């Protein structure tokens, strides 16, 4: 409760107690008080939060939806468009990635990329890293994820690229922002970031015919120890998986190592979302599961480009999709953290195309 102030209007003292009803109902309303007196005085007004149960302006499709955790959706602003002159992927207008569908139906083999193609993806990887770092540095208490989306959108456009998520199967925004119990595919909206949140920002750029995909989870303000451990665990899971990547390694081997590490820390691994091949297509073969004992097909070969993006949960691995048909949340409402890189297999191992160039994540967040 450190740093939280009493919710009684005009009190301003540090909070020491929390309303038990708010805790039971998993409400995100101001529920901390400095003393029993303040709580009793403010009670007639405070209890109205309990009656409502849910914020007033909940989008209509969420009516009667039983949320798994405290997070609630807010308003989503109209979709932005890429300006003239930006090269568009095939789904940018019609929302359906036709080339991906075709490749999927044919169960297309893993693509061996040429050195020229890899050079484009190397430059693109650097650009996408810059964009993610801009978003990561901007994310602060009080800022909305919508504002972050504007920052990402503009940073992508400035670099002459297209924000790949925009209108991909009608995804309405230019990046994914996944807070707390959101596993992935959170839609940027008008909810302000709060002290103690963990926020994943997932950025993908499309440029010169190729995609590059990466994400990181940021600690917003003061995150509790368990939250920090969760984020650190997700970070380590990605690191150890990347270290295994070299010609001959089977894609299925990564999941065994990731799950072993996560379980050891008391965390679970999301199974319904996987890493994926990437290149001229946003998502293609191979499928890269993060859970153990998977039967994924394929061995790594020089020139394969794919993502690894373990999602690690505080509680159950099971997920549930919000009625917005995008936001994937944990089935028990507990938090989830994720990190992602795009990498290419080389003769001697792999090259992380989206690697950090400006200081380490651990230095910034954990030291």
């Amino acid at each position, binding site marked *: 409760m450190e740093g939280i102030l009493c919710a009684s209007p005009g009190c301003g003292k540090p909070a020491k107690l929390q309303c038990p009803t708010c805790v039971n109902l998993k409400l995100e309303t101001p529920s901390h008080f400095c003393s029993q007196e303040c709580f009793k005085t403010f009670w007639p007004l405070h209890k109205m939060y309990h009656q409502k149960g849910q914020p007033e302006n909940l989008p209509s499709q969420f009516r009667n939806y039983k949320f798994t955790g405290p997070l609630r959706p807010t308003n989503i602003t109209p979709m932005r468009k890429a300006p003239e002159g930006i090269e568009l992927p095939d789904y940018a207008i019609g929302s359906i990635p036709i080339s991906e569908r075709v490749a999927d139906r044919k169960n297309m083999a893993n693509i061996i990329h040429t050195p020229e193609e890899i050079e484009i993806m190397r430059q693109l990887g650097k650009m996408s890293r810059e964009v993610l770092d801009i978003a990561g540095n901007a994310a602060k208490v009080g800022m909305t994820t919508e504002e972050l989306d504007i920052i990402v959108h503009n940073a992508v456009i400035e670099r002459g690229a297209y924000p790949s998520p925009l209108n991909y199967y009608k995804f309405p925004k230019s990046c994914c922002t996944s807070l707390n119990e959101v596993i992935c595919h959170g839609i940027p909206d008008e909810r302000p970031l709060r002290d103690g949140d963990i926020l994943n920002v997932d950025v993908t750029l499309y440029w010169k015919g190729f995609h590059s995909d990466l994400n990181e989870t940021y600690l917003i303000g003061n995150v509790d120890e368990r939250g920090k451990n969760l984020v650190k665990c997700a970070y380590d899971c990605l690191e150890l998986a990347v270290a295994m990547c070299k010609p001959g390694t*089977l894609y299925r081997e990564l999941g065994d190592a990731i799950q072993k590490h996560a379980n050891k820390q008391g*965390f679970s691994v999301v199974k319904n979302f996987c890493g994926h091949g990437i290149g001229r297509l946003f998502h293609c073969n191979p499928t890269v*599961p993060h859970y153990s*004992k998977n*039967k994924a097909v*394929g*061995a790594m070969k020089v020139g394969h480009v794919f993502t690894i993006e373990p999602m690690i949960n505080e*509680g159950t691995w099971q997920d549930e999709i919000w009625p917005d048909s995008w936001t994937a949340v944990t089935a028990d409402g507990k938090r989830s953290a994720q990190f992602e890189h795009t990498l290419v297999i080389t003769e001697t191992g792999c090259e992380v195309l989206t690697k950090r160039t400006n200081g380490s994540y651990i230095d910034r967040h954990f030291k």
Partner: protein
Amino acid sequence: MTEVTNSNINKKVPVTLITGFLGSGKTTFLNYILNENHGKKIAVIQNEYGQSIGIETAMIVDSNGEKIQEWLEFPNGCICCTVKDDFLQSIEDLLKRSDKFDYILIESTGMGDPGQISASLWVDEELESPIYFDSIITLVDSKHIEKHIEKSKLNSNANNNNNKKVDDEDIEIHGTDIKYYSTEVERQIAFADIILLNKIDLLDQSNLNNEIKTITERIKSINPIAKIITTERSVVPLDKVLDVKAYNPNIELLKEYLDQFQKGQNSNNQHQHQHNNNEESSSCKECSLTNTSNHSKFINTVCITEDGDIDLTEFNRWIGNLLWEEKKDCIFRCKGLISVKGQDEKYILQGVYATFEVLPSGLLWSKDEKRHNKIVLIGESLNQNELEQSFKNKLL
């Protein structure tokens, strides 16, 4: 916490894939399941192209223009629906229904490749799916199987005019491109866990035992590890063919399979030589010496038996390399008992097409037992020496 719990397989609904050639009795088998009083609640998902049950199934279109499955209910509690191609979607729809089913049967049409479908049905155990893949059952028309397998040979043998005439009649009956007939039938046999040798009542009853023996040997030359059951009019005690858990890492079951291979191998040991694809069957002296000859010239079985231990990662990579690179699309099934370095448990290999897994069996190597590996591979034009040598190189 969340130590991932392996869900209890007994609570899950088994799924069996039924394949079989036109005229093999698949229709009769499915009708038997949907209409007889066998005491099980079975859901049958039938491919639209099959249409074998001959029931008008209305496809309902909802307001979004999407097709909704309609399930036909039968007096014995079974239900049936017809789908275009998305079996998994219809299974999901089925599981959303409030009524519970003991079993799901999926009929794949004569032209469907059982390998592709079974790979999508064989869901990772970790995903805790409410279904599990039980087995592939292939129905075989024992009266016509010889001819079906014979066909590719006859097509390339212009001298055999008499037989060819008989075949032409068959072409009319079945009405499909005959060139792909034998390949298809052989592949269906090669993929099977269980083979129902159907229509034995139509065989020459005065010489029944010999006829069955000949056909069984023929089938074993294509797939020596499948369980073969003879039936009349597709009537078979369901307990014998359903819920066999063919993909469980069950050492007893594997032993049964491998023992069958031993038998098959012995009865066909004169056919262990290799055939090349471009080799005319008549030019093979070894085969022409024997009475029944080796007719599955495209499909063969390799069995590797070696003492010693192997590193689990190395073994996975070796099998992966065979299935995905070196023998890509040419290995249909694999099964094996594996001795993994540093593990007291016996490990089991299971594979269908490009999908495979190697899992501990739960049973230990006993002290007086020699640790060994035994791997059976069924596929197209596999070379015993080459594969054996390749495996030996990986042994520790």
